[in-house]
C-alpha cells in the first residue's frame, strides 16, 4: 500500500487533490481511498487530505500516520505544523515553491534519498495556465513524474473527470502537464 498525505491551506483544493489522485489510481485498475482530515475547514487554515493506493481492497480507516509521500501545497506550513510527522524514511516529498530546495532549509531533506524530494513552482504554473493560484493540478502532474505511482495520462483523465467545464479542465491539464514535463526533464538530466 502506498499512502499519500497532502498538506495545504483551506481554499487551495487539498481535498480535491486527494480525490483526483484516487481517481487517477482507480483508472489504472488500482484500489484507492481518498478522504479529508474532517475538520471545520475554512479559508487559509491548515488542511490535510489523504490518499491510499493499493492493488487489493483497502480496509484500513485510520488517518495516514506513516505516509510514503507528502505533498505540501504551501511551504509556510513547515513552520506552522509538524508536516513530516510519521514520514517514512525513503519516502517522497513534493513542495510547492518557486524557490530551490536549499533555499527552503528543510531538515527532513538531509535524511532523504537523492531524487525523492523536489520543489515545483505549482502556484506559478497555475497562475500561468489557470489564471488562479490553485496548485493542486500542477502538483499532481509533478507527483506522477516524481513517484511513478500513477501515470500522467491517468492524472489528466482524472482532472477531466473532476471538472465539468471543459475550459477549466483544459487549463488544469495544461498546468499538470507542464509541471510533469518540467520534473521529468530534471530527473532525466540527473
Amino acid at each position, binding site marked *: 500500500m502506498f499512502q499519500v498525505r497532502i498538506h495545504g491551506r483551506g481554499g487551495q483544493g487539498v481535498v480535491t487533490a486527494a*480525490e483526483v489522485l484516487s481517481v487517477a489510481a482507480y483508472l489504472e485498475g488500482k*484500489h*484507492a481511498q*481518498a478522504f479529508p482530515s*474532517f475538520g471545520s475547514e475554512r479559508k487559509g487554515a491548515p488542511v490535510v487530505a489523504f490518499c491510499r493506493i493499493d492493488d487489493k481492497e483497502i*480496509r484500513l480507516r485510520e488517518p495516514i500516520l506513516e505516509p510514503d509521500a507528502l505533498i505540501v501545497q504551501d511551504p509556510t506550513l513547515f513552520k506552522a505544523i509538524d508536516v513530516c510527522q510519521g514520514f517514512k524514511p525513503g519516502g517522497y516529498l513534493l513542495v510547492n515553491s518557486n524557490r530551490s530546495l536549499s533555499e527552503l532549509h528543510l531538515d527532513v531533506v538531509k535524511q532523504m534519498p537523492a531524487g525523492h524530494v523536489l520543489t515545483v513552482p505549482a502556484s506559478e504554473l497555475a497562475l500561468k495556465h489557470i489564471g488562479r493560484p490553485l496548485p493542486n493540478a500542477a502538483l499532481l502532474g509533478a507527483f506522477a513524474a516524481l513517484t511513478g505511482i500513477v501515470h500522467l495520462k491517468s492524472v489528466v483523465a482524472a482532472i477531466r473527470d473532476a471538472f465539468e467545464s471543459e475550459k477549466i479542465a483544459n487549463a488544469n491539464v495544461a498546468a499538470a502537464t507542464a509541471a510533469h514535463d518540467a520534473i521529468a526533464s530534471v530527473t532525466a538530466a540527473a
Partner: protein
Amino acid sequence: MRKQIEGSRAMAEAVGLCRPEVICAYPITPQTHIVEGLGEMVRTGEIKNCEFINVESEFAALSVAIGASAAGARAYTATASQGLLFMAEAVYNASGLGLPIVMTLGNRAIGAPINIWNDHSDAMAVCDSGWMQLFAETNQEAADLHIQAFRLAEELSMPVMVCVDGFILTHAVERVDVPEQADVDAYLPPYEPVQVLDPNDPISIGAMVGPDAFTEVRYLQHYKQTLALRLIPEYAAEFKKKFGRDSGGLLRTYHTEDAELIVVAMGSVNGTIKDTIDEMRADGLKVGLVTLVSFRPFPTTALREKLVRTRNVVVIEKSLAVGMGGPLANNVDLALRNVAGAPQVHSVIAGLGGRPITRASLHRVLRRAFVQPWEGSHFLDLNEEIVAKELHYVRKVRRSGPTAENILRRLGQAAEKAAV
C-alpha cells in the same frame, strides 16, 4: 457501474435507483452531501416522479416524510446528530404508525460539547424507537443497504435507518459498484402500502390508544422486528444472487472458527479491525471478528451461535451510555445471558467524537485482553494525565468552571510545553 466516487454520492445514487417519490431533508454535517446530490438528481430529472421538499428543520423533514408515506409515497430523508434529536418525536411517530420510511443517518457525536465528528451516539439515542438500524462497513455496503432497506421497510411497513459513519464513509472517495436501474427494479418491487390516506377511501391513522390496546400495538411492533431477523438474511442472500456481492445480513464473521478472542463491532471500524487481526494472527494470536450489521433488530441468537465457543469477547463501540457503559457491550451480554460457561465480555469505548481508532491502539487493547482482561469499560486512548489533573482541580476548587474549556486549556498548555 463501477465508479470511484464519494460515499455520499454513491448513497444518493443508490437512493435514486430506489425510485423515491418524496425526499425531504434539512442539511446537517456530515449528511448534507447525500441530500445535495439527491436534490440535484431530482432537479435534472435523473430521478423521475419525485418531489424534493425543502423544509425548515429536521422535525419538519421527518414530519413531511411521515405525511408522504401515509399518503402512499415512497419517502426518504437523512440526518445526523442534533438533527436526529430535533426530530426525535417524529422518529417515534414514524415507527409507531408503522410507516416504511428509509432514513440515512450520517453518524455523528451529540453535543454538548458540540462536535461534528463521527461516533454512534446519535444512532444509540434512538435505537429503541422502533426503527430498524443497519450499519454499513464500507461505502459499497452503504449504497447497497439502502436498496435492501426499502425492501425490508416496505415488506414489514416499518421504518429503517441506514447508519453510515460520518466523514469516514460519507466523505471518503472509493470504489463503489453502483447497481443498474433494471436490476434494482427487479429486486425492489413498487411500493404497495398497507395503509393509505386516500380522500376517496377515508381512514384515520394515529388514533389515541389507551391501556386496553397499547400493549398489543407495541407487541406487534416488536413482533415485526423479530420477523425482520428472518427477512434481513433472506434479502441479503437474494441481493448477493442478483448483484454478486455480500452486503447486509444480520452479521458477518472473520476468522471466528478457531478464535480464542472475538471482537464485536459495527460500522467502518471493522476494516481497521480486520487489518489488525491479520497482523495479530501472523503473530500466532487467534483473534476473530463479528461485524454486526443489524443492531435493531438485535440478532441475539445468531450472535450467540458465533460467540459461545470462544473464551473472550471484546466489544469495541463508538458510543457511551453515560452511567452504564457501552450499549453494544450490554446488548452482547444479553446474547450470552443464561449460557453456561459463556465467554467473558470486555467493553472498549473508542472513537468518541471522531478520535481515530488506529491499528496501534487496537493492537494494545486486544493484546491486553489476552493477558490482562478487565471489568467495566476501557476507554481507548484516554488521556489519563489530563483527566487526573482535572479531577484533582475540581476537588480543590468549587467554582472550577466548564469541563470542556478546562480540558481544552490543559491540552493547549501541554502542547505549548512540548513545543518549547
